[in-house]
């Protein structure tokens, strides 16, 4: 059954001017002087000015709210069974960013989580490892030691997670500390206050500064869609982040409800599809927060395949930020393998 607007080969909605010059500022920049922010006159010609950004983002077509919700609901009804389900469960496991972001986290707890990340189900050696372990910056060292050589990434939230309300210098120091301790992926939060106030340039500059500080590390930009309010703003924030150099756009911190919802992820997937059509660069999507069941995860995979395209079905382009989800995936995997409904006694509780 053909779907309108399906796949990555669809015509882009509009033409988005690509940023001129290199997309990232020179690496090695420790601190960008905060005084230069918000002043279009002092920004180099390779960057965008406030007025230009506003024109671009507000020129984006609006999201059809009813249509987006209906399409997400329709795709959620798709049935994934048997062999396809077994493959999808393994794919979803390999896309999990196993996350612990609690005030009560300890190095021991992080080590236990890392052991689980490397071998999610020790009784079943063919279970793939997860994509990454996501922790606070001060625990990156413990995670990096525990994961060394295992092929699992070390992701760290940084930039004054979860509110993002700190001076840029503090945010960059946060990022620097995480990288120095061995983080390979940085999950930064945007300044929602500035974004909602219309100060797109501040958000853009912050992402660019963090992008520059990240060097080779992967940058995921958390939009915290639950605080943005409208799908239009979600689309604008996604384009803003991608234009500033994000490798991934991520829905939520997990600290705000609502977190990831299918329509929001649909909007993000449309944004990365259109961005690639406009610029040729592929950006990943990370759905985080509130995803607890295999059924939810499979629905997001269907959304990704049908919206952005099948080449988004890889851990390099789609991730789940979750903690409880992995256990449900493992239980489903056992159920598929044995025909017997599994129980939580069979998986490590963390």
């Amino acid at each position: 059954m053909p779907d309108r607007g399906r796949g990555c080969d669809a015509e882009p909605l509009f033409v988005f001017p690509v940023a001129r010059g290199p997309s990232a500022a020179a690496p090695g920049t420790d601190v960008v002087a905060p005084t230069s922010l918000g002043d279009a006159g002092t920004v180099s010609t390779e960057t965008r000015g406030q007025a230009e950004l506003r024109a671009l983002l507000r020129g984006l077509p609006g999201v059809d709210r009813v249509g987006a919700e209906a399409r997400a609901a329709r795709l959620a009804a798709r049935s994934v069974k048997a062999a396809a389900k077994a493959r999808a469960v393994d794919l979803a496991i390999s896309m999990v960013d196993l996350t612990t972001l609690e005030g009560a986290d300890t190095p021991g707890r992080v080590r236990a989580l890392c052991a689980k990340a490397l071998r999610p189900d020790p009784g079943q050696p063919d279970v793939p490892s997860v994509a990454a372990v996501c922790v606070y910056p001060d625990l990156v060292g413990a995670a990096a030691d525990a994961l060394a050589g295992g092929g699992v990434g070390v992701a760290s939230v940084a930039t004054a997670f979860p509110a993002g309300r700190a001076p840029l210098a503090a945010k960059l120091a946060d990022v620097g500390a995480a990288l120095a301790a061995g983080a390979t992926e940085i999950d930064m939060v945007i300044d929602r206050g500035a974004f909602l106030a219309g100060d797109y340039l501040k958000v853009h500059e912050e992402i660019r500064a963090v992008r520059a500080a990240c060097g080779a590390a992967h940058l995921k930009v958390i939009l915290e869609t639950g605080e943005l309010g409208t799908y239009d703003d979600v689309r604008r924030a996604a384009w803003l982040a991608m234009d500033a150099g994000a490798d991934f756009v991520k829905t939520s911190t997990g600290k705000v409800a609502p977190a990831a919802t299918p329509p929001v992820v649909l909007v993000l997937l449309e944004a990365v599809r259109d961005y690639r059509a406009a610029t040729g660069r592929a950006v990943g999507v990370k759905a985080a927060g509130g995803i607890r069941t295999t059924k939810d995860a499979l629905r997001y995979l269907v959304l990704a395949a049908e919206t952005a395209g099948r080449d988004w079905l890889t851990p390099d382009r789609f991730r789940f930020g979750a903690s409880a989800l992995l256990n449900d995936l493992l239980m489903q995997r056992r159920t598929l393998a044995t025909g017997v409904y599994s129980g939580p006694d069979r998986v490590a509780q963390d």
Partner: protein
Amino acid sequence: MADEMTERIPVRKTYKLFIGGAFPRSESGRSYPVADADGAFLANAARASRKDVRDAVVAARKAFPGWSGRTAYNRGQILYRIAEMLEGRREQFAAELRATGLDGAAARAEVDAAVDRWVWYAGWADKLAAVFGDPAPVAGPFHTVSVPEPTGVVGIVAPDGPLLGLVSMLAPVVVSGNTAVVVASEPAPLPAAAFAEVLATSDLPGGVVNLLTGYRAELAPRLASHEDVNALDLTGVPDADAKPLAEAAAGNLKRLFSRPADDWSREPGTARIRAFLEIKTVWHTVGA
């Protein structure tokens, strides 16, 4: 003609499942016809699927901490309340039982016996700990105390005797704090489905009792092999069918209770209560 116009059309009941305190249809949308004792069509009952079993177990597991964490007194009060609701619906249940083939007097007697049985078990709620637990006299510089605790989620395959058997199996399971998933009698599921309405109006937290109607051969193996079920009562299963279920139940070392079909009218004793209890013993040093 005028008489026909004013004749009232009776509102017929759709018999459904009882899962997590709600009355859903089967996830599969299926139903099966139930006949009365003469073979005439009585009603359609929901025909639960394996996914309904799964959902029921999830609901029972979710309800377990809350129900087992209540005080024994409070559990007893809720069970008494169920007996009160059942008492108030004696006529309805007598009618349900007459449809399964009992004559009027026998149906009434069965309902009365079921109410009395439920009250009998309800009385045990706050006496269990004293009867099954004890401070043990040990020779050592410490003393030990044993306390009974509920086993967890208990699967019940109900017998074909439509009400007294069901009540006699269910009450001893929930009285100690277990939660239950019940597969009702296949040929006569309607009294069980009506019993769920009693449970739903008695302050019993949703999910403590979950009741499925459908084909036993389809549901019982799923319940027996489910690894999040801690115990299984196979009393309602004929001996010939019980062996494969018992083998499936061994997968996660379920407690198994299977007694040949009892004469339910006998004084039950405490064996069924004890079968779904774990005994936890703690020790404590004695000061010098």
